C-alpha cells in the first residue's frame, strides 16, 4: 500500500516539477531573451563593438590536422590557424612571401632555398625555425593524407641549413612548386613533439595526430580554443601573432557546422548567427535578402561544377553520345537556376593561370544532339541503355541541375534515371567502373590556382575511381601530357602545354560538361561586421576570403 502512494507522489511531483518548469520558462524567457541580448549581443542595444563572430560552414571536419584535411571545410579553418611559406596574391593568385622572405632555385628547379622570417612565433610563443618547416614536410608526407599527394612524388628531402634557411631538394622538376606551397602548412614541431604519443611513425610516435584532434599548433592569427567533433570550432585570437591584426577583428570566432536551410534561415534572421558560409539554395538566399540588413556576394571557387560522363560504360562510352549529351545541356538555364554563374568554354575556370580561351564547348542545340545520337553506335537501341544521373544529397541546388539535364536528355530520346546519393555512397560508387553512374554531378576544385592542379586532380588517372573523376578517362596520352606540363618549369612553355591539354579534352575526349564556375554565395548581417569580400575585394582563393583577421566588427 505504502509503495503505491510513494509511487503516486513521485509521479505527481515529477508532473508538478515539469509543469512548473515549463511555466517558469514561458514567464522567464521574456526577460531572458532580453538579458541574453544584453550580455551576448550588446551590438543591437548599445552599439558597442561585439568581439565574437558567429559563422557557419557546411560541416565541421573530424580533425583540424593540416596533414589530413584537404576539403573546403578544412581549408576554411586552416587559413586562420596555420601559415605557409608563401601567400597567394588576392587578385592574381601569384605566390608572395609570407613565412619565407625570399627564395632562390638552381639546378633546373630541383633545389630550392628559402630564407625564413626570424620573428615568427607560434600561438604558444615558440619561435618558428627551419626545423619546423622540415618537420611539417616530413610529417605531411609520412601521414600520406590530405594535400600530401602534391608533394610526395616531388619533394625528395628537406635540409635545415640554419634557423632561417631551409633547402628543398626535389625528385623531379615541378613547374607549379612555389604556387603549390600554399598547401604546405607549417606546424609547431616543439609542441607536437612534446605531445607525441606512441604510434605508427617510428621515433615520431603518432606525429602528434592525437593532440591535433582537438588542438592547433600553428602560427596563424587564431588558434583553436574548443573543438567539438562534427559540431563546432571556437577560434581565439593569437596574442603571440607576429604580424598585425586589425583592432576591430573578432577576438573569437564560433564556427558551427550548419547546412539545414530552415535552421540557417531562422538563426540568421534571429541574430544568432552573423554569417552563413554560402551553400544555401537560391530561394533561401532570396527570402533572407528581404531583410535590408543582410547582404550577399559571390565568391568564385577554385574549380567548377561538372557533369562527368563515364567513358567506360554504355552508352556514354561512345564519343558521339557524350557529344550529344553536351549539346543537349542548356548551360545558360543551369546558370540561371543558381542566379547567374560564370560559364567557361574550357574545363578550367577562365580566372585560372593557364586557362585557355582558345576552345569552344558544345552549344545548346537539341538538333545537334539528335544528329550526334544518330551517328553513334547506340542510334537504334538507345532506349535499352538508360542513363543514370547521380548527384550528391544536400549539395545545394545541384539536384535541380541533374533534374534539368535529365529532362533535356529525355527530350532528345534518352531514358533517364536520376538518383540522389548520400555522400559516402557517392564516393563508394565512384570506386569501380561498374558502380560508377553514367553521369554524375559534382564540384571539383584545384589545390592551388593554376590550370595544372585542376587538370591533375580532375582528369589524370590519379583520381580515377574517386568522386573527382567519374569519367574513368584512363588515357595514357592525357596522363603523359599532364605530367609533362607539370614538370615544365618555364612559365610560357607550361602555359602552352596547358592550352594543348584543354583543347585535347574538349575536342577529342569530351568526358565532361563544364556546367559553370563554382561559386559560394555567403550571406551576412551587415550590422554586425564588414569584410573584404563584402566590400568588393574578393580573394581569388575561396578560403582566404574567410580569413577572420581581416574582418571588422561593428
Amino acid at each position: 500500500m505504502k509503495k503505491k502512494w510513494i509511487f503516486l507522489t513521485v509521479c505527481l511531483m515529477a508532473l508538478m516539477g515539469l509543469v512548473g518548469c515549463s511555466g517558469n520558462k514561458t514567464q522567464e524567457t521574456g526577460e531572458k531573451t532580453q538579458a541574453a541580448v544584453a550580455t551576448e549581443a550588446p551590438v543591437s542595444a548599445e552599439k558597442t563593438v561585439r568581439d565574437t563572430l558567429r559563422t557557419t560552414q557546411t560541416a565541421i571536419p573530424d580533425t583540424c590536422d593540416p596533414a589530413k584535411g584537404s576539403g573546403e571545410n578544412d581549408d576554411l579553418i586552416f587559413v586562420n590557424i596555420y601559415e605557409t611559406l608563401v601567400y597567394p596574391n588576392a587578385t592574381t593568385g601569384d605566390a608572395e612571401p609570407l613565412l619565407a622572405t625570399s627564395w632562390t632555385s638552381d639546378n633546373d628547379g630541383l633545389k630550392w632555398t628559402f630564407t625564413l622570417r626570424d620573428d615568427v612565433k607560434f600561438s604558444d610563443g615558440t619561435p618558428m625555425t627551419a626545423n619546423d618547416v622540415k618537420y611539417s614536410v616530413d610529417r605531411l608526407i609520412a601521414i600520406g593524407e590530405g594535400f600530401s599527394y602534391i608533394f610526395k612524388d616531388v619533394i625528395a628531402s628537406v635540409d635545415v641549413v640554419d634557423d632561417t634557411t631551409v633547402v628543398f631538394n626535389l625528385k623531379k622538376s615541378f613547374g607549379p612548386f612555389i604556387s603549390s606551397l600554399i598547401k604546405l602548412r607549417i606546424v609547431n614541431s616543439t609542441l607536437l613533439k612534446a605531445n607525441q604519443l606512441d604510434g605508427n611513425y617510428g621515433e615520431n610516435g603518432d606525429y602528434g595526430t592525437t593532440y591535433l584532434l582537438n588542438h592547433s599548433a600553428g602560427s596563424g592569427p587564431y588558434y583553436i580554443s574548443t573543438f567539438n567533433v562534427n559540431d563546432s570550432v571556437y577560434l581565439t585570437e593569437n596574442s603571440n601573432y607576429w604580424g598585425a591584426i586589425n583592432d576591430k577583428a573578432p577576438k573569437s570566432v564560433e564556427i558551427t557546422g550548419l547546412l539545414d536551410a530552415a535552421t540557417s534561415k531562422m538563426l540568421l534572421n534571429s541574430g544568432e548567427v552573423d554569417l552563413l558560409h554560402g551553400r544555401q539554395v537560391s530561394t533561401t538566399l532570396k527570402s533572407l535578402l528581404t531583410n535590408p540588413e543582410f547582404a550577399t556576394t559571390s565568391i568564385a571557387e577554385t574549380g567548377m561544377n561538372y557533369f562527368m560522363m563515364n567513358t567506360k560504360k554504355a552508352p556514354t562510352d561512345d564519343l558521339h553520345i557524350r557529344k550529344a549529351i553536351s549539346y543537349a545541356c542548356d548551360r545558360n538555364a543551369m546558370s540561371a537556376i543558381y542566379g547567374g554563374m560564370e560559364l567557361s568554354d574550357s574545363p578550367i575556370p577562365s580566372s585560372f593561370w593557364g586557362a585557355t580561351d582558345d576552345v569552344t564547348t558544345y552549344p545548346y542545340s537539341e538538333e545537334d544532339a539528335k544528329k550526334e545520337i544518330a551517328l553513334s553506335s547506340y542510334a537504334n537501341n538507345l532506349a535499352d541503355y538508360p542513363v543514370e544521373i547521380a548527384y550528391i544529397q544536400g549539395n545545394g541546388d545541384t539536384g535541380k541541375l541533374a533534374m534539368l539535364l535529365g529532362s533535356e536528355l529525355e527530350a532528345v530520346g534518352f531514358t533517364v534515371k536520376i538518383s540522389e546519393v548520400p555522400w559516402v555512397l557517392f564516393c563508394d560508387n565512384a570506386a569501380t567502373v561498374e558502380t560508377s553512374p553514367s553521369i554524375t554531378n559534382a564540384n571539383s576544385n584545384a589545390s592551388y590556382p593554376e590550370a595544372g592542379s585542376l587538370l591533375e586532380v580532375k582528369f589524370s588517372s590519379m583520381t580515377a575511381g574517386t568522386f573527382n573523376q567519374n569519367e574513368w578517362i584512363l588515357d595514357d596520352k592525357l596522363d603523359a601530357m599532364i605530367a609533362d606540363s607539370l614538370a615544365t618549369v618555364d612559365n610560357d612553355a607550361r602555359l602552352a602545354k596547358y592550352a594543348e591539354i584543354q583543347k585535347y579534352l574538349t575536342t577529342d575526349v569530351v568526358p565532361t560538361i563544364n556546367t559553370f564556375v563554382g561559386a559560394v554565395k555567403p550571406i551576412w548581417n551587415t550590422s554586425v561586421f564588414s569584410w573584404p569580400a563584402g566590400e568588393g575585394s574578393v580573394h581569388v582563393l575561396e578560403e582566404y576570403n574567410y580569413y577572420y583577421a581581416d574582418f571588422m566588427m561593428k
Partner: protein
Amino acid sequence: MLAAYLQKLDSDKTNKNSRIEQFKRNWYKFSRNPMNIIGLIIVAVVIFVTIFAKTLAPHPEDAGLHVDIMNAFSKPTLKNWAGTDEYGRDLFSRIIIGLRPSMGIAIMVLAISVTIGVLLGLVAGYYKGTLIDLLISRITELFMSIPPLILAMVVCTMFSNNYFFAAIGIAVAWWPWYTRITYNLVTSLSNELFIVYTELAGVKMMKIIIREMLPNITSSILTKMTLDTGSIILVASSMSYVGLGVQPPTPSLGSMVSEGIAYLPEFWWLTVMPALAVVVIVMGFNLLGDGLTDVLSVEDK
C-alpha cells in the same frame, strides 16, 4: 463437450451460414461508430487512389523529370490544388503518386514480416519449452533490440539505397513483433479447453495449429496489420525524410516534407500538404484498425 467439439471439427461446412450471421453482427457493431466508417472510407480511398494514381493525377508527368521553373512556387489554386514546388511541379499530383511507394513499402513489409513472423511464432509456440523455442525467442529479441529505423538504414547503406531495400530494411525490424504476438496467442490458446480436448482426442499437433490455431489468431493478426500499415507509412516517411528509400524525381511523402522545410515559412504548402497527407492516411488506417479491434475483441469475449 469433447464429443460436441469433435463434431464441430468435421462439420465446418455447416458453419458457413453462422459465419455470415456473425459477419453481419460484426458489421452492425462496426458501423455504429462513425469513426470506424470514416476510417474505412479513408482506407478505401487511399487504396483506390494508389491503384489508379497515374490516371487520377491531374499532372502525372510531374512525378517524373518534369521541370517547369516558370511555374514554380505557385500557391494552391484551382489549377494546382496543392500548389507547385520548386520545380513547378503540381504538388497534388505528386502527393497522389507519392502514395504508391508508401503503400508499396507497407505491403511489402507486411507480406515479409507476417510470413516470417507468424511462421516462427507458430513453430516456437508448437515447440514451447524446447530448445527451438528458446532459439527463436532469442533471435526475436536480438532483432527487437535494434531500432527499426537504424536497422533499415543499415540495410539501405549496405546494399542499395532504393525503395526495395528500404522495405526489406523495415521488414527485418518488423517481423519479430509478429512472432511475439503469434507466440503469445498460440501459447495462450493451447491452454484453452478446446485445444486441450483436441489434443487429447489424438489429433496431430500440426493439424491443430493449421486448422484451429491459425484461424483463431487471424483476426488479431489482421487487426495488427491494419494498425501497422499506418506505422510503417510513418517509418517509411521518416526514412525518406533522411533520403533513404525512394529516389527523386519519384515523389515520396517524407522526402517531400523534408525538401519543403527549406522553404518555410513563405512556401508553407510544400511542407504542410504532404505532411497533411501522411496524417490523414495514417489516421485512416488507425481508425479502421481500432474499429476492428473493438469489434473483434468483443467477439472474443
